[in-house]
């Protein structure tokens, strides 16, 4: 059995503003999970969708990030601190006109002796590519993951959101 295991995958049947994975398992197929991988492949529904996560429904100002992006003509870096959701990308987001793919990894999600680290990559053909490092300043084990947009917009019908666990 592989150490890289699908936990759940959702294909959106309509424009959707939030996607939630509740009761994230700590073991699956006899494997103890260490890291999470979230893959989002789709487009914005009613406008641009700026992907953010909330862990355990935490709306406190506990999320921090730094990112670097390139768009073909210039390279830029950005930072954010004390925000109420975990950015997965800053300048590369889901538009209604072209698909975007984001691959995000959350490390040691069950460990209670460390903040939770995030590594994320965002890719969109006509806009650019971005890498982001994030941190949820909490030692709580992650039990739920909420995906939403910073501006309240939706993801489009057909967008696929998948959550994987990695044994470690």
């Amino acid at each position, binding site marked *: 059995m592989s150490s890289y295991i699908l936990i759940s995958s959702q294909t959106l049947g309509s424009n959707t503003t939030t996607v939630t994975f509740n009761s994230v398992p700590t073991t699956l197929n006899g494997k103890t999970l*260490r890291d999470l991988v979230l893959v989002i492949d789709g487009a914005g529904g009613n406008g641009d969708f700026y992907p953010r996560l909330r862990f355990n429904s935490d709306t406190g100002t506990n999320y921090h990030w730094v990112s*670097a992006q390139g768009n073909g003509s210039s390279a830029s870096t950005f*930072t954010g601190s004390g925000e109420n959701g975990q950015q997965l990308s800053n300048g590369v987001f889901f538009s209604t006109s072209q698909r975007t793919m984001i691959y995000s990894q959350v490390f040691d999600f069950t460990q209670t002796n460390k903040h939770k680290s995030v*590594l994320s990559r965002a890719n969109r053909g006509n806009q650019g590519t971005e890498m982001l*490092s994030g941190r949820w300043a909490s030692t709580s084990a992650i039990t739920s993951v909420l995906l939403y947009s910073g501006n309240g917009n939706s993801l489009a019908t057909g967008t696929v959101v998948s959550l994987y666990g*990695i044994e470690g």
Partner: protein
Amino acid sequence: MPIPLGVLAVAGAGGAALPSYELIQSVTSGYFQNIDFTNLQTQSSNYRHLQLRGVVRATGGDGTLSMKINEASSGYAYHWLGRSEYNANVNSSGAGSVLSINLGTMPQTADIFASFVIDILDAFSTSKNKTVRVSWGSTTGASDPRAIYIMSGLYNSTSAITSINFNSGNNPVLATGTRISLYGIRG
């Protein structure tokens, strides 16, 4: 159409095929300066590529996480791209006696760890120099160092990989909670 021999060998052997991505070993540090993965030649018939995933924190001083392959003290080169804790735009390179996995220092603040993923392609080939790619992220406080970058590394040897060693530098050690896991990928 003839059936490829490899497919026959897997399907007809009566045993389950090995997973395409599998945990080989996971090491957590309790105040160590080194984390070592050894006897990797025993994995050469099972896997083609290796991946290392981890979170690291230093204690006792500034530390840079470095990596050696086969205990070699020469033959490494690397390029970084991204943002370091000291420079908003990094496009730099280096070479030397180790692969410097991070540019700058590891976090030292309690509970805060840097995270990374390292891929080593064709790790057991004896006809190719070894290519290493790294994604590194470190997000500390608002006024503290934050870094995100990718690194491409070279181990200029065609030897099959038999060991991988991580070191935290001269004075600091890897803090409790540091974890590095090694995975094998079939190919």
